[in-house]
């Protein structure tokens, strides 16, 4: 099993009505690999990672996660979602629950963990994202950076093998981006398999094993960070990098 990839996409396509958001995407992510996905707005980055835990259903191609193929099979989907955690641009914390309840809910409902054990688990991961002191507050009493770290802790409480991040720092004020990225770096260093959509190029350079560049629903270029930043092969990659690094 050692060489089974964590995630394997072959020829994945997805359209919304008549609009093709993904066009035959092939991507293989190895166990423990960190992949950063970037590309212009509307290029299909979100659609791609939302297909991996089936928040969007792909129309064609195959998606295999930890050896389980995604299809209409509900049991397979449950299995995949247990293994895949996701962090959203807009945090999506549950506003009617405290921080600790946010963390403990899914282990209780999905894994059947007892409340005390689930809350202990919650505290463990709140510790890890360095906000144990906020456990009994409600999400709207926290700063954006703290909320996103709670969202990461909440996903980690399911002890997933894969984490998906969809622009986790894009909704944050600049001074809070660092604390969230630091948390993600820690995760990366512990060997978590990660796919991360982000335009934080310094982060990409530091943690990514490979960078995927997408445009118009296709994967245009895949390269290690060194090659990607110093010697991009595709014109569109170069244009994109020029724009983003100018800022």
């Amino acid at each position: 099993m050692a060489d089974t990839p964590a995630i394997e996409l072959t020829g994945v396509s997805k359209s919304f009505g008549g609009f093709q958001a993904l066009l035959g995407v092939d991507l293989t992510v190895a166990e423990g690999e960190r992949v950063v996905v970037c590309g212009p707005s509307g290029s299909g980055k979100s659609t791609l990672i939302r297909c991996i835990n089936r928040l969007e259903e792909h129309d064609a191609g195959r998606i295999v996660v930890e050896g389980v193929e995604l299809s209409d099979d509900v049991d397979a989907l449950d299995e995949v979602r247990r293994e895949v955690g996701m962090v959203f641009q807009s945090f999506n914390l549950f506003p009617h629950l405290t921080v600790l309840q946010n963390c403990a809910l899914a282990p209780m409902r999905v894994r059947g963990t007892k409340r005390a054990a689930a809350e202990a688990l919650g505290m463990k991961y709140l510790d890890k994202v360095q906000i144990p002191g906020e456990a009994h507050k409600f999400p709207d009493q926290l700063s954006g950076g703290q909320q996103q770290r709670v969202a990461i802790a909440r996903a980690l409480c399911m002890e997933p093998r894969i984490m998906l991040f969809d622009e986790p720092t894009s909704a944050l004020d600049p001074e809070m981006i660092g604390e969230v990225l630091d948390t993600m770096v820690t995760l990366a260093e512990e060997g978590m398999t990660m796919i991360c959509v982000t335009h934080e190029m310094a982060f990409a350079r530091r943690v990514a094993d490979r960078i995927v560049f997408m445009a118009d629903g296709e994967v245009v270029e895949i390269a290690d960070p060194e090659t990607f930043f110093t010697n991009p092969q595709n014109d569109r990659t170069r244009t994109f990098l020029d724009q983003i690094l100018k800022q």
Partner: protein
Amino acid sequence: MAVALAPPATDDNLMAWARRRLFSTWLDGLITVAFGALMIWAVARIVDWGVLDAVWTVAEKDRCREVDGACWSVIGARGRLILFGLYPHDEHWRSTLACIAIILTMGFSCIPKFWGLRRLPALWVAGFAIFILLMYGGILGLPVVRTEQWGGLSLTVFIFAAVVVIGMPLAVVLALARRSPLPVISGVANVIINFVRSLPLLAILFTAAVVVPFVVPDWAQGDKLVRVTLAFALFFACYQAEIIRAGLQAIPSGQEEAASALGMKYWSRVFDIMLPQAFRNSLPSTINQFVITFKETSIVTIIGFFEIMASGNAAVGTGEWVSQFVEVYVFVGAIYFAFVFGLSRYGAYLERRARLTHG
């Protein structure tokens, strides 16, 4: 850094406050004096009528014709009729206890500690069981009192509670069904809601009370009060379903996505994530609907039930108390007010609790 400003002037001095707020211009002063006088006059009249010039006891009822004030003797003389309707006189204690049981059950279900998928249903099953046992009797040596004889405040409170308790889960089911991705389910919910809403409540209650016995076989008819309550609950549910649906629609789509991504199944997403937020979003409209429903219970008079409004009418309908209708309406009005005001205050408490409002 912002510079600290001097604190705003406080109203430490009543005269200064009055000058600033009530008498700042000529016109202000005039309006203040005019409305002040009007208010004092109105309050004085009400106190005169209701307290100072009033006759209080039944024994003194002959003085009623002589005085200008209220004749509260009518409440003493006819109070039991108002509160118990046609319920047999010797069994009034049962109606009282039954009414208290329902009110206590309502009170308990207002306490967040009781909001559980097991606790709340258990509480209401117990509450209704005690109510029916006491009101209907037939065991423990209690003589049977048929539902046609139920009346007054107990009946009002019972109909209200039953309509809400049966209607609420039904409303949740209809609201969820209407959002279902399966066209058959959403279609059926849609038809039910729109059909029921397009009919007047009176027509629905008439159908349940009068028409059903003609078309349904005897064994399936059930009691008239049960049929009417169920029909009323369906009517309530169709309105409340739309209120809940509005609450569901106000939830950002990311909430359900986050729950799905965590692996939570449909029912868990519904009960743990969607419904708590939907109820919170729709709290003001829901309280509104409760208040409307409480007052609408008086419509069952028309199909022959003596709830409190009808028994109030009956109390002054004939005989010696015909001219005391104002006193009786004030009395009945005060009872309605107590319930509706209690509901409103509870709604305000819930909003504070949900931190929807500040203050």
